[in-house]
């Protein structure tokens, strides 16, 4: 071994890649990061973080049923979770429209009820604690080749939808009144955005799990929003932060031996704090108020 620091650095970076599960884990962490960051920009701009978190928890019964009927087959789990997420997001909308319940109250009711149902279902299986942990906190090292392809396909689909509906989603997020006067299909756009959110949550189950997915949706987008002036650059920067956090977090998890989902989320949080702090310092230097 030479003493060249660059050589040591390269070795340090390459060592985990000797393991196939780490290669797959790094790839999926980056792809999931990008999907969540893109969808997360809309969540941050529309102030729907609470809905995102609720949706993530509410898919647990769907995962549980998928798990019970398929004995843990990942593909089946994916479709059950996605179906539950779509039904829940449409359900929350209908509940808050139909009866006189404020939307955040409706979300709270659906969120907790569904989460409890999920735990109840999973607890009927013996030895449930391990599987429940994987749902709650992710299992990035258990990712198969098929998972990787499915996630990549989902990523491409999300990109295509955002590209084609970019201007409509922009109007919907900025000025819902204009959606009405321009006679855009408001309900359809809302449902489509809910489906994107559901998809992002379901693919991120593999990396960070139900409990932490909201961080992946919100933190990179929020960090990017601090330093960008249009939606395209916000989406780009959020994707870079999220994909970077996925990779860095996984390395941290490998070398520091901490839970991978937590490491990824903490890396996102670190980037957010860094950017927030940097912006505050810049504003101080320029003599501008910090909170503006």
């Amino acid at each position: 071994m030479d003493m060249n620091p660059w050589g040591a650095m390269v070795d340090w970076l390459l060592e985990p890649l000797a393991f196939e599960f780490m290669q797959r884990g790094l790839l999926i962490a980056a792809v999931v990061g990008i999907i969540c960051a893109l969808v997360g920009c809309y969540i941050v701009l529309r102030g729907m973080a609470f809905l995102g978190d609720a949706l993530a928890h509410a898919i647990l019964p769907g995962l549980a049923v998928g798990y019970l009927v398929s004995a843990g087959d990942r593909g089946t789990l994916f479709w059950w979770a996605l179906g539950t997420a779509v039904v829940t997001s449409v359900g929350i909308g209908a509940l808050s429209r139909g009866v006189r319940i404020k939307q955040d109250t409706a979300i709270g009711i659906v969120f907790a009820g569904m989460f409890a149902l999920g735990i109840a279902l999973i607890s009927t299986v013996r030895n449930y604690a391990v599987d429940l942990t994987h749902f709650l906190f992710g299992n990035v090292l258990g990712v198969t080749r098929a998972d990787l392809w499915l996630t990549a396909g989902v990523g491409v689909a999300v990109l295509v939808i955002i590209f084609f509906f970019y201007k409509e989603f922009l109007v919907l997020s900025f000025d819902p009144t204009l959606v009405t006067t321009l006679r855009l299909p408001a309900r359809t756009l809302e449902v489509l955005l809910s489906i994107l959110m559901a998809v992002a949550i379901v693919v991120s189950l593999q990396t960070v799990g139900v409990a932490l997915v909201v961080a992946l949706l919100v933190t990179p987008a929020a960090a990017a929003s601090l330093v960008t002036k249009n939606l395209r650059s916000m989406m780009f920067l959020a994707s870079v932060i999220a994909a970077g956090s996925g990779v860095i977090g996984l390395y941290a998890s490998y070398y520091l031996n901490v839970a991978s989902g937590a490491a990824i989320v903490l890396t996102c949080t670190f980037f957010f704090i860094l950017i927030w702090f940097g912006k505050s310092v810049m504003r101080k230097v320029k003599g501008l108020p910090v909170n503006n």
Partner: protein
Amino acid sequence: MSKSKKKTEHSWTGPALELRNLSLRFDGHSALDNLTLTVDPGLSVAVVGPNGAGKSTLFNVLAGILSPGSGEVRIHGHLPAQHLCLAYVAQSSHVDWTFPVSVEEVVMMGRVGLLGLFRQPTRKDWDFVRESLSRVHLEDLGRRQISELSGGQKQRMFIARALAQEADPILLDEPLAGLDIPSQDQILNILDDLKRRGITVLFATHDLELASRFDRILLLNRRLIAFGDRDEVLTTNNLTEAYGGTMQVIETPEGRIMIGDSGGHHGHEPVGRHG
């Protein structure tokens, strides 16, 4: 779907706006009561009345945001839902000013309905946006982030968006609220320009003196008190009926002064003068 909407034919010979027996109730009390009126194309109409008279509610019904409880709205002969040529410049507090969009991107939003699904703006659309911005004298600020605009510039940006939408009629809800005098004058000049171009404008305001600059005045207090030109509408009887106990009309050597309580918590404040 959007294609057929775009092709909705206008009957430009008929009225721009037609209300027939329009009523709306909220929580059991009447918000709009049996409004019937027609507005000819190209007219500018001031919509006045005390707070809670239903000015914003009326605009929301015209825009298709609220559906009328009973009665009918026609815009160039069509139901509101069939139409995309109406623009609503709501009170500007309704959007998030930190939203990452530039001024010209907001104005381009006006063309999203005309473009239809799956179509991206072309060079022509951007030219149209720049043209709309120069109509409201914001041509140099197109690339600014929207939070960098002043209050008056924000209102003008929304008027430019209505122009980019190629809208007629344009509804403006209290567009001068909170603006300084020079900014108010700029917007009034833009309204004169809209008028020269034959665009129908409805303008909600508290200011009766300002209202008398318009072709027609619609005096509203849930029901239609009067609709016509200023001499027909701004009479002692009509104003007393609209403003009720909160309105006092005093004849002075300088002319007729109307004192009204528009807020309820400021005590008496003058709402305008008509000499």
